[in-house]
């Protein structure tokens, strides 16, 4: 395939779409219609709706991929895997059948959702609390100045977030609020600004075709970067 098809056209599409969305977000470009909206508004609205459709499509694509991937395991009788793959596909089919024939908002669908997926999801999420506890126990040790500060701040915030203790020890609330509103907020702002600038940089690289990871396999010549 030529470089034009593999790289130039996709990058051009990315560039044009990104410019349209940014123009619509930041500036009102004439001509402006009677509602006061620029010409980009209608175009971007359509693009956003296409984006929603693509995302919805990718959900179905994920299901197809699951079928393909796990069907291979079942057909090959992969040891310690094929039974789980079979179970997964059975559950997918059950949810799909109930959702299609009885409706995704039906009592039956809600029942199987609550009885299976919701319960499992909440359980795995809850296991985080245990992992955090063991992480805290191991990590918050007075090994050096930084870890001591880490420990002191961690203990203050832990105690401040315990509702009942805030009643009996109001000083904890004051210290905790200072840590949250001054120290944490300023650090988070720095991280957010840095992260945002990094994302902008990556966006510019993507729009100019320097970042080609999303295009998949390209030769060095097609990438147009430096020679090895």
């Amino acid at each position, binding site marked *: 395939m030529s470089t034009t098809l593999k790289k130039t056209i996709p990058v051009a599409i990315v560039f044009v779409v990104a410019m349209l969305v940014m123009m619509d977000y930041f500036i009102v470009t004439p001509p402006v219609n009677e509602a006061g909206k620029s010409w980009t508004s209608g175009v971007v609205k359509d693009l956003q709706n296409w*984006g929603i459709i*693509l*995302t919805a499509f*990718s*959900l179905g*694509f*994920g299901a197809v*991929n*699951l079928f393909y*991937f796990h069907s*291979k395991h079942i057909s090959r009788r992969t040891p*310690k895997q094929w039974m789980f793959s079979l179970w997964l596909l059975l559950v997918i089919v059950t949810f799909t059948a109930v959702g299609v024939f009885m409706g995704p908002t039906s009592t039956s669908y809600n029942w199987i959702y609550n009885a299976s*997926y919701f319960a*499992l*999801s909440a359980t*795995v*999420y809850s*296991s*985080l609390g245990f*992992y*955090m506890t*063991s*992480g*805290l126990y191991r*990590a918050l040790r007075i090994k050096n100045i930084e870890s001591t500060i880490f420990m002191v701040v961690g203990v203050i915030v832990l105690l401040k977030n315990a509702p009942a203790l805030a009643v009996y020890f109001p000083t904890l609330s004051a210290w905790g609020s200072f840590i949250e509103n001054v120290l944490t907020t300023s650090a*988070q702002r720095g*991280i*957010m*600004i*840095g*992260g945002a*600038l*990094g*994302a*902008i*940089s*990556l*966006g*510019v*690289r*993507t729009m*100019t075709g*320097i*970042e080609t*990871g*999303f*295009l*998949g*396999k390209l030769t060095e010549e097609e990438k147009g*970067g*430096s020679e090895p």
Partner: protein
Amino acid sequence: MWIFILGGMEMAKTHKPQFRKLTGLDALPEMVGRAAEMNRPVHFTTGLGSLTDSVAPQLVAGLAVLAHVSELCANYGVKIIYSVYQAQVMPIATELMKAAYVKAGKPEEFHADEQVRYLSGEQFAYASAVQGIAERERPAANIMIGPFYAESMLFSETFQRIGSIQLAGTARGYQIPFFAVVCDYLLIAEEIYAAGAYLSGDPVQVGTTRGQDYGKIVALILMILGVLATAAGSSAITSLMGM
């Protein structure tokens, strides 16, 4: 930002800027070497997020590191397992890893079915599957670069318990503390975006990172001016930012 980044790219063609040390990325050969000595695989994941949402830049940054780590693993003869959350990432990751093995001169050692594993599009099903990989295959090294959500702590603790050396990086501020507490090496926020440039050494990519740094300097100057102006009772800088 555009001017800084494009300017940085142009300047880098004549004078390539130097990075400060990113210990986590420098440790990658050591991590893969450890896996080679222990005859255990390397596990890599780029977390949640797709190529169409707001965390896509982090996913792309993770894929850049995946390409480099795949090449290292190919050179060292170590199996790399890439756990996939989003189906749309699979073909891209497969191509990147295959290209890395081809570049290392060992295309026959790459087995996409075994090494690129699409686990699930659901967060905790994916998290459970990764924990299962950790328990069964016991990787010697675990590399997590990309957008991570609640599963970050699940992964870190599980891999720590089985004795893996870990490198983690994310720009999602919510999860950085969890990685900081458990992992051996950490990349914070914009360091993951610079990772591709740092590892490849490509002057153009390095130049864009320099442009990004110029943007930070401008942000810092505006911040200082804003603080001084607000303290003096002027809202000029605030109004300028609110434009």
